[in-house]
């Protein structure tokens, strides 16, 4: 099974999971148990990975000391919970995330997601799917350059594939849009919301290898693949409606 097939299977599993859980305890889905409401949420997120290592780029690397990409983010979002499930959905969210607080010119991502949550008595399990759109952090652009004693220059440029336009900024293809899935646990005591979980984005990356001879003959190996970019997050929310 290829990684993209694996990602598709994972996506289906994530979406189906709350339905299965709900099926085990039908009382958790009654409309009387659901708390409708709209929350304003703030939170932190942490990305980590090794962008030049395909294996660890496509798999969550839990080794804190073997990474060359580490990114802290802050999130602001509005999340609305329906009073009743609507077409198997519990609500929707609209959010903004600022990746890499050290730089202002990049790392601005908007997101739109749909979610389903189920009450597991002491907390709720929530799964979401959606899209992220925006100008990604510079941290996703990396070049490894090597000049050999033979006069040949070799380099690998790994970077997030920009596939959409951001209006009023730069050139025509300077933004990204890609799907994500998210799994989290949350509690909504009183008018508050506490949530923690993991979101996995599926952007496409270009992994381009160049080799330039002393006579300026250029060799290429240009690859593009969709990869999983996970981050963990913790959020706090206040009910506004």
């Amino acid at each position, binding site marked *: 099974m290829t990684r993209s097939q694996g990602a598709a299977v994972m996506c289906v599993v994530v979406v189906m999971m709350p339905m299965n859980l709900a099926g085990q305890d039908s009382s958790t889905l009654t409309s009387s148990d659901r708390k409708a409401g709209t929350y304003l949420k703030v939170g932190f997120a942490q990305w980590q990975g090794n962008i030049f290592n395909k294996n660890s780029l496509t798999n969550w690397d839990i080794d804190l000391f073997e990474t060359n990409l580490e990114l802290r983010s802050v999130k602001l979002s509005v999340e609305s919970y329906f009073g009743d499930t609507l077409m198997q959905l519990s609500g929707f969210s609209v959010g903004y995330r600022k990746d890499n607080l050290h730089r202002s010119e990049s790392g601005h991502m908007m997101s739109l997601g749909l979610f389903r949550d189920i009450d597991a008595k002491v907390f709720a399990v929530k799964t979401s799917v959606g899209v992220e759109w925006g100008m990604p952090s510079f941290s996703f652009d990396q070049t490894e350059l090597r000049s050999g004693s033979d006069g040949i220059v070799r*380099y690998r440029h790994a970077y997030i594939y920009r596939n959409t336009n951001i209006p009023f900024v730069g050139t025509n293809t300077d933004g990204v849009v890609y799907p994500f899935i998210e799994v989290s646990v949350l509690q909504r005591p009183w008018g508050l919301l*506490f949530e923690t979980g993991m979101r996995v984005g599926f952007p496409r990356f270009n992994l381009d290898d160049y080799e330039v001879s002393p006579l300026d003959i250029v060799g290429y190996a240009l690859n593009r693949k969709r990869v999983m970019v996970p981050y963990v997050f913790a959020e706090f929310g206040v009910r506004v409606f």
Partner: protein
Amino acid sequence: MVQKRMHRFSIGTLFVVLAVCMGCEGGRLTPVGPTDSAIVDDTLIHQVRLQWSPYLGVHVTAEALDTYRDALATLRSKGQLRGVRIELHPNLSPNDRAISAIRSTGVDLLALVSNQYLFVDNIEREFDKILADYPEIRYFQIGNEVTTILPADGPTIDIAGYMSVFRRIYDHVQARYKGRVVLLTQSSLGSGSRGAMELEAMVDHGLLELDPNQVVIGINSYDLDSAAQYLGLLGGALRKYRVWVTESGVRDSKLHISWVQENYPRLRNLLRAERVYWYTLWGGDAGPDTEFSLVKQPANYPNYWRSPLFSVLTAER
């Protein structure tokens, strides 16, 4: 009830721990060093030389001849100089003393063919003459900031006009000098979004019809804001083209070191720049002793002023 409270406590604790961990300082990818010239230790030398790209712009002027010779030889002897970018004006003699001094160092030359050439009638003949005068030069950049650096009362050129001239030179080179010459496109203004917009216009006017083995994309970049504007183009339409940053740096000698440490790797990461040319060894647009300069007061040779960056690059280890 107790069990429920315990679960809530656990989740609350997990939330707080995650929030505290994420709030801690971190995420910086590149070390930042001091800019004080007095602090030249081995670690700093290593860090700066690791990021430095051994390429440099040099203004062709006989005012600084001895200092040029000394500074270029010193950088070269320390392995910190492989190539120099010089500008060729129509009235510049190949026997000019400054040109001769630079050529004698044996560094790889990138010749910026001055914007004035863009307006001559027979550019092919002019290019033949340039190649005959400078037989050792392989890399020629056709113009620089062509829509912004122009004589006040002279002719102007837009990107369509520029690409027409560039195409004529390219076709001439392919017909007569293929394999002998590599052309660089003009580098647009190095700040704001103008550069990326002009490069996009160059794509619209036929840049992609030119062989990536024969053409290198030139970019001037004095801030990351401007560099960021190119990313969609370089990862898309221009994915097969090489990129050289032909001018970079900061107009403050105290910040030279930190600029190299922080921004050279970023320019490579963002633009996949094979080379980054420091704007200038001496001089600049606003007078001879500008704060871009790695050396100043060349008349005081051999006691000319050396910037902290120059000192780090040429320090004994």
